[in-house]
């Protein structure tokens, strides 16, 4: 085993940070899907297979449409933040993806296949962030400072 006392203070990002970039691409794709679905809800709700009464929660399509457009825009923004390795974007990504999955579960009767695809994408996003999100933050910190945690180590050694 290595006897490097700094090892604990220097967790290294693995080669798998690409997962976070993939998660970002997926959440931006989900965001685009949301915007399209939101527009359909607002402008062409006859396209859906059921009326609002057929949904789990009887909410007018106009309200669902705005919710979807809002989620979509936020998702795309979160995706950009994830690519930059921002911690807040990684946390927000999990929350937004979970909300998106719940909304689609409740509205699944409107267009089942769309909802199934979006829920699958949400799961991919959550997996990517949960397993590799921390490494992306480490990578970002390493880029700004080659030895993150160095100051804490020096303070402790004194």
């Amino acid at each position, binding site marked *: 085993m290595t006897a490097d006392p700094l090892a604990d203070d220097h967790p290294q990002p693995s080669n798998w940070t690409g*997962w976070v970039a993939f998660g970002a691409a997926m959440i931006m794709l989900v965001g685009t899907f949301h915007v399209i679905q939101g527009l359909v809800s607002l402008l062409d709700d006859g396209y859906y297979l059921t009326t609002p009464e057929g949904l789990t929660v009887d909410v007018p399509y106009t309200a669902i449409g705005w919710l979807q457009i809002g989620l979509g825009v936020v998702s795309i923004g979160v995706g950009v933040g994830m690519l930059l390795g921002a911690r807040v974007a990684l946390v927000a990504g999990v929350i937004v993806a979970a909300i998106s999955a719940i909304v689609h579960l409740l509205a699944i009767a409107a267009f089942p296949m*769309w909802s199934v695809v979006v829920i699958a994408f949400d799961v991919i996003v959550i997996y990517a962030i949960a397993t590799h999100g921390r490494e992306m933050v480490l990578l970002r910190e390493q880029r700004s400072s080659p030895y993150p945690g160095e100051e804490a180590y020096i303070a402790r050694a004194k």
Partner: protein
Amino acid sequence: MSEHAVHGAAAAGSDAPPVTHTKTRDRSLWVGWVYFGGAMMILLGTFNLIEGLVALFNDQYYVATPQGLLVFDITAWGWIHLIIGIAAVGVGIGVFTGAMWARVTGVILCGINAIAQLAFLSAYPVWAVIVIALDVLVIWALIVHGDEARDSDW
């Protein structure tokens, strides 16, 4: 020769593990995913070509829901699928050469294709869902393993 030297040092318990060397070795192991992404891209391009040809020559084959299509008519969709299909096959072949442009174009093309399939989904849901799944697979392979392709010898 130098490889053996590095391994020997690591096995002897040196406190300077050969980090750089290990990374390079890991990468070359996973580069096969990029070939897989290229192969999947050619496959989904072929699916798109078939979808496009069916739309142009045999549009009765599609499941016509009462609501019809979201946007465009079936002929327009035929041409869209045909063009995306041809592009995907071409870019898929490009991915096999290890070219950076092919991976970037591949990710963008598959993203656009997934959106197009979502809008076209009601015409033939199962086809569209399969193609969306393939799009995601290609995007995954090209993004997650793109670095390895960059660092490998082709």
